Structures are given as structure tokens and as C-alpha cells.
């Protein structure tokens, strides 16, 4: 028998591989109770691995009837099992919240007895938080695959985000490590919630009072590097799911090997593919915010992302015909395609150039990565476009050999050393 502290350790440890950490997108205001949603989310602290902690992320229980090889809570794994009562979860959430430790709750669970039984328990927690505690903070709830539509729809009335994880990016891969699971059982709850969100939005056009239903939308997660998919496979699946289910986010989680018995999965002790995960997130951003289409970044001739440079730079080097881009005349959509230039800096450039043509020294101060961008853009006082005619020299100038096991931090993996310039000319 363990005490409450031990239970918390077990059930928090088991929940941490579900990496979604967002507390943004909620619209809840405090009405007669406690708590509200911050529209951009708040990271209350960060773990020693650098990830944000904004929610109390726990499993209701880590007992599970399934045996998925990549999961730490799989049936055949010899670990301590525990379970929270509804009251315990509610009390813990409220006490952490009142001390401003968290933005809210992230509740998941192993499947105990059946999908419906598990989903019903989760529902009792969120219902009690909203109706009895008058809690208006953020709640992220897992949708259990196989749970009935009625249960899913009722849960949606109480929570801000719902998610269900694909885990393995392809059906074939999934069958190798979790033969009891399939992608269809993930698609069904995503479809149910999506349909209900759309239906309620329609109702809002004619009725004034429509209940809040999953205001922060849905998300999913894919594990990277457990089974041998290419980056094209992964982003292809992500792209399709974004379109089909109006997802707010797809998360890419580098696989942490924890199963010493399965020979198909990477060995315990193998480092998780953090750099690859970082490049996938950058690609995800390019598709959603920078106007790129998937086949510009990944296609059958180019199935995997470079690890040693960010995907926008890699695209620019493959497409020298578009450069240099004149920042004083080009559209915003083209300025954000310059390597080293983000949306905020692009916006500053577009606003500032109304007052006069911008020179290099002005643009340098606007927050761009100038040593990278200089090869691809021209300002009012640029002498001539440097290097765009020589993609290979530019690549050599900007890429340094990655150190093995170096933790990912994309903006510093590109060499910004000026001395390389001498070898260009």
C-alpha cells in the first residue's frame, strides 16, 4: 500500500510521455467561481529536460488491459500499479490551482475494464470540477478510443481540449507493436468531436446561448523513431489529420525506449531522436504558418529532413532561382520564406519600409538571423546578392558538423562564424 505521494509519483511518471502541454486556446471566463483560461496559455515552470509544465498531467490509473509494446503501462510490464479516486483528483487539482502552480488538468488513463467504464470515470472528474467546484480553468481530456458517442459528447461540454493519440504514424507500423490497436479507432472519436464542434458553431448563428464545447479544439500525437517511418510518412499523416479533423496541433514525440523485451523497437539506452523531432516541428510550422505545401519540403525525391539545417534553409538551397528576395519590394508571403526571417520580423519590415527604404543595419536590429539571411535577401544598400548563385558554397558556409548526442536547439546548430565568408570568394 502506498501513500498519496507515491500514487502521484507513479501516475505522473506514467503520464509524461503524452507530450501535449498546451494550455492555450481556451475562452473560459470566471463566472462566479474560480479560474479562467489564458488565451495564449501560461507555462508555470519547466522540467529539467526543458519542457514546459502548465497542467497537472496524470493518469487516473495505470492499470491497462492492452499490451502495446512501446507503452510503459502495457499489461505485461512488471511495474507498480495505482489508481486515483475521483475525489482525490479533484482535490489535488483545486489545491494546485489555487496556489498558481498550474493552469489546469490534463487527464488520461490506462484502459480499465472497458473503454466506456474508463471514459465514464474521467467524465465524473471533469463534471465535478466544473459543476461542484465552479472551476473555470483549463482541462485537457483524453478521448478513449471505443468509448460511446454519448459519453464523448457529454465530456466535451466540460473540457477545453480533447485528444486521442495515433502513436505510430502508419497502420503497418502500429500492427507490429500493438496488434490490438488500429488507426480507425483513433479516427472515430476525432470525427465525433469534430462533427459536434461544427454542429454547435452552426447553431450559434441562430441561437444566442450555445454551450462551450471543446473550445481549444483537438490534437493528436505521433511517436518518432519507434518504427521505421520516413519523415514523409510522418508529415503526410499529420497533414491528412490536420485537414480531415480540423486539429489544432499534432505533437511529435521522440521515442524513449523503455521496453527491453521487444526486438522490433530501439534498444533501451538509445538516445531519443531529439534533433529529428525538432526538424519535424519546424516543418509543421512551415506548413501551417509560412504558406509552404508539403511537397515543397518533403516528397518522393526527398523523403527525410536534413538534421544539420532547418527545413526552410534546406528548401532555399534547393531553390536558388527565387533569391535574392528584395525586402523593400517583396510581399510579406515571400519575405517569410527567407531563411532566418520569422513572421514577427517580417511584419516589422513591412511596417517600417513605409517610412523609407530599409538598409542592412536597420534590418539587422529587427530580430532576424542576419548571418543566415544575408545570402538570400537584398536591402537598399546590399552590393549584390551574396551566394544565391552558389548554393553549395552557401551550404558549406552555414552548416557545421553536428556533435553526436547534442541536444536540439535549431538556431544554434547553424554555424554563424564569419570567417567562413573568406572561402566564398
Amino acid at each position, binding site marked *: 500500500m502506498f501513500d498519496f505521494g507515491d500514487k502521484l509519483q507513479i501516475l505522473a511518471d506514467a503520464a509524461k*510521455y503524452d507530450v501535449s502541454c498546451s494550455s492555450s486556446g481556451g475562452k473560459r471566463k470566471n463566472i462566479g467561481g474560480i479560474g479562467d483560461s*489564458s488565451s495564449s496559455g501560461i507555462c508555470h515552470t*519547466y522540467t529539467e529536460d*526543458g519542457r514546459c509544465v502548465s497542467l497537472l498531467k496524470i493518469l487516473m490509473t495505470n492499470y491497462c488491459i492492452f499490451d502495446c509494446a512501446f507503452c510503459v503501462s502495457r499489461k505485461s510490464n512488471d511495474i507498480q500499479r495505482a489508481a486515483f479516486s475521483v475525489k482525490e483528483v479533484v482535490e489535488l487539482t483545486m489545491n494546485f490551482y489555487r*496556489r498558481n502552480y498550474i493552469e489546469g488538468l490534463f487527464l488520461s488513463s490506462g484502459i480499465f475494464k472497458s473503454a466506456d467504464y474508463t471514459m465514464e470515470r474521467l467524465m465524473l472528474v471533469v463534471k465535478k470540477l466544473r459543476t461542484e467546484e465552479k472551476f473555470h480553468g483549463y482541462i485537457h481530456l483524453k478521448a478513449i478510443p471505443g468509448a460511446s458517442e454519448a459519453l464523448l459528447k457529454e465530456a466535451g461540454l466540460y473540457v477545453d481540449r480533447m485528444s486521442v493519440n495515433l502513436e505510430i504514424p502508419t497502420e503497418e507500423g502500429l500492427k507490429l507493436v500493438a496488434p490490438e490497436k488500429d488507426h480507425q479507432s483513433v479516427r472515430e472519436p476525432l470525427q465525433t468531436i469534430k462533427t459536434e464542434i461544427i454542429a454547435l458553431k452552426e447553431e450559434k448563428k441562430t441561437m444566442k446561448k450555445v454551450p462551450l464545447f471543446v473550445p481549444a479544439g483537438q490534437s493528436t500525437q505521433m511517436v518518432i523513431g519507434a518504427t521505421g517511418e520516413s519523415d514523409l510518412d510522418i508529415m503526410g499523416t499529420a497533414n491528412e489529420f490536420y485537414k480531415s479533423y480540423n486539429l489544432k496541433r499534432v505533437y511529435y514525440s521522440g521515442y524513449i525506449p523503455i521496453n527491453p523485451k521487444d526486438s522490433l523497437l530501439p534498444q533501451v539506452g538509445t538516445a531519443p531522436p531529439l534533433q529529428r523531432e525538432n526538424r519535424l516541428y519546424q516543418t509543421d510550422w512551415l506548413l501551417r504558418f509560412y504558406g509552404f505545401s508539403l511537397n515543397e519540403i518533403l516528397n518522393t525525391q526527398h523523403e527525410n529532413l536534413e538534421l544539420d539545417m532547418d527545413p526552410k534553409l534546406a528548401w532555399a538551397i534547393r531553390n536558388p532561382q527565387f533569391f535574392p528576395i528584395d525586402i523593400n519590394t517583396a510581399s510579406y508571403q515571400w519575405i517569410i520564406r527567407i531563411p532566418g526571417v520569422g513572421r514577427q520580423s517580417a511584419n516589422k519590415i513591412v511596417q517600417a519600409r513605409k517610412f523609407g527604404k530599409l538598409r542592412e543595419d*536597420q534590418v539587422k536590429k*529587427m530580430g532576424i538571423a542576419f548571418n543566415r539571411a544575408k545570402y538570400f535577401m537584398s536591402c537598399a544598400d546590399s552590393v549584390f546578392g551574396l551566394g544565391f548563385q552558389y548554393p553549395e558554397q552557401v551550404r558549406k558556409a552555414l552548416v557545421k558538423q553536428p556533435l553526436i548526442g547534442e541536444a536540439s*536547439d535549431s538556431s544554434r546548430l547553424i554555424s554563424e562564424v564569419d570567417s567562413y565568408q573568406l572561402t566564398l570568394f
Partner: protein
Amino acid sequence: MYYIFDGTYAGYICCVFEAFSRKEIDSRPTRLDLIQTTLFFESRPIETHPERFQRVVQAMEKKIGHAGMKLFYQNFLADEEKAWLNGFQLLIKLFQTETLDLKNYGDPQILQFHQTIKKVNRERHRMKAFVRFMKDSNELYTAIIEPDFNVLPLIIDFFRNRYADQQWLIYDIRRQYGYHYNLKEVQEVFSTAEMLTDESQSLQVSLDLKEEEYQILWKKYFKSTNIEQRKNLKLHIRHVPQRYWKYLTEKS
């Protein structure tokens, strides 16, 4: 010429009024405790007159609107002489040249203005995240912070809206003042000798019976949710700089 004002925003704006009425637009606003020496520069104390403050503020609103005024206030809260001087000079420009487009990022003063505001807002966001309440035996939730900039005025609305059903007190230990919410309204409070001891984290409060238990649970949670195989202390410290650790339950 140093203009010595009382440290409040109204006082700061009165410096602008004074500069125009005396034609001393090259002045530098500062606070008495910040001034190194008056040996090489003359100084003039500036009194805070509410009517003068109102006049300047109304004129500001006509030219740059409510949004622009918020920006000048946030720039002021940076609590640094060079930010004050930059804002002061921009306000002089505003009234001298009749227009001042705050979107002209090419101008170095405007760029510095926006960069300062960005720093202040980052600290504001951090404080929303890093405030850690302790519950005492009177059901009051107390927190101590030591922010780089004077962001306390910017976060009280947030805490009042969120924690509407509990009494709370947030105290800025560097600037020696705080705000207290008593379930109806928020009031400014200043330290009294009985309230504080010399050590930074010991307010004389008797804690709620379960307070220590929840602090331990939070520390346990913080440790359990960490993934050892992804350890990256550099990234961790970048997000949670060490100067905040002493007020964070999980790091202390």
C-alpha cells in the same frame, strides 16, 4: 538638467509638462535614489500635479490613442533610467512634431522603445507563471516576487479575475510594495516592520495545516514529470533563470 520626480507615472508625465513650460527639453528624468551625483549636472525637483498629468495625458490620447498610451506606460514600468529617457524624448518629439508613428521600426529610438516594452511584457508573462501562493491559517494566499521590472500593476487584473473567490496578497520584495485582494477589491499595501524579517522568503505568517503537504506533493510531481533521457539543463535554465529559483516552490 536632471528632473527628479517621485517615481510614479504621474510624476514622470509631469516632467514632460515641465520640460515644455520651461523649454528644457534636454532634461533627463530620474528618481532621487538613482542619481549618482549632481556635481556635473544641475537638477530640478518635479512636483506631481494631477491637473498637469491629466492635460498631458489627454493630449497624448488625441495623438496616439489608447493603445499608444498603454505602450508608454509599459515603457515607464521598465523602471530604468535609459528607458525613461527614451520614452521622455519620444514624448517630446510627439508634441513638437505633431506626429509620431510608433510603427516606424527603422527609427532606432522607436525600436528601442518596442524592445523595452517587449522585455517588460516578457517579465509580466513570467510573473503570471512564477507567482507561487502559500496558504496561511487565515485562508489568505500570499506570494513574494522579485521581478526585474515593475510589472506588479500589470498583473493584478489577471489575478483578480482568476482567483476571485480567495483572498490573496502579492508582494514585490525588491520595490517594497504589494497588492492585497479582500474578495471585493484590490488595495495597494506597503511593508511594515512587523510584516517582514530580513530574509527574503520569511513573511511572518502561520501556514495552513496542509500547506507543507501540498508543497511536497508539487515537488514530487515536478520531479516525476521530468524525462531523464531528455535532460537539457541549458534549455531548462534559459526558460527558468536561476534568479527566480528562490521563490519557486519546486526549485527551492
